[in-house]
């Protein structure tokens, strides 16, 4: 299936791309997110330096739940099937925002 994903680039701008993921809509959103990260070559976590130690932090994920530009919603239950999520991305695709910014730091 095709999905749209959003990621913050080096300058802090949110950029989107559409990718093809081999997965059934009956699969869970968790499986989709794992496959998405694998496909785009982005690690599922980032590392923060706290007191000279590297601490692993998971990136956060949100799904577009309304046509509004800022209409993102959290994923409360990652075992929910893909087909149960609304599709408000470009051309009616499922749209996922991967938060990889400094918000993870505090």
């Amino acid at each position: 299936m095709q999905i749209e994903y959003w990621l913050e680039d080096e300058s802090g701008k949110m950029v989107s791309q559409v990718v093809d993921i081999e997965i059934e809509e009956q699969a869970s959103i968790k499986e989709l997110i794992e496959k998405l990260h694998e496909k785009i070559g982005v690690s599922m976590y980032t590392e923060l330096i706290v007191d000279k130690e590297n601490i692993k932090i998971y990136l956060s994920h949100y799904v577009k739940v309304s046509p509004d530009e800022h209409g993102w919603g959290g994923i409360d239950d990652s075992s929910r099937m893909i087909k149960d999520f609304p599709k408000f991305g470009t051309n009616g695709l499922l749209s996922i925002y991967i938060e990889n910014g400094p918000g993870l730091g505090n």
Partner: protein
Amino acid sequence: MVPDWVIEYDYHQGLDAKEISFHLEKGINILRIKNFPCEDLNYEKFIQVIGTPVHELRNNNGTGVFDVKVNKKAEAFKSLANSNLSLPLHTDCSDFEKIPDGLGLLCVNNSEQGGESTFAFLKTILQEMNPLQLEGLLDKKWHFRHQQGSIITYEKGEYKIRFDRVLMQSFSNLKNHEIDHLDALGELFEKYKVNMKLEPGDLILFRNDLTLHGREKFPQGEKRLFKRIRFHLK
């Protein structure tokens, strides 16, 4: 015994929003409200009287409230706030163009061991800083992810602070002399650190741009839960 840097209120005795706003505007003290109800809607409504809450995607159900509690899967935490680790003194949202000047932390449950909240007041730090150090902090521009700015600024007759060592080091390529500089600064801030252990129902309010805050480490199994609202003062 209430420390002299704390102004204490009791929710049951009624709260004067004007007086609270006045003290936050001055930004000299930590305001502690005892017996505050631990419920998101009421909490946000109260904050809306004195300021405008910052709504972030990761907050609870689109509100201005974020649950600061341990959230760990396998080897990774959901965010640094969602860890049990010690958080060094910092200001929140240092990477924002305009940092929220108010911060509320409502203690629903604290850890039995550790988990003390820590603070350092910019006013105290400035009193102890020599003019050359201050000049250096006003002049040097640092990267706060995509924002560039000084650690200390002077705006409308008032000094303000923006500092987050974790963000500055994790999202920028700092040179060794810059890391040494931040180490020295961190040591200076630690020298003026005060701490407070919050009890369930304690809501603390303080200025995010005039006060550094952090917390001490606590055991991972502890059910510590604080509810955070970042806000812009009215």
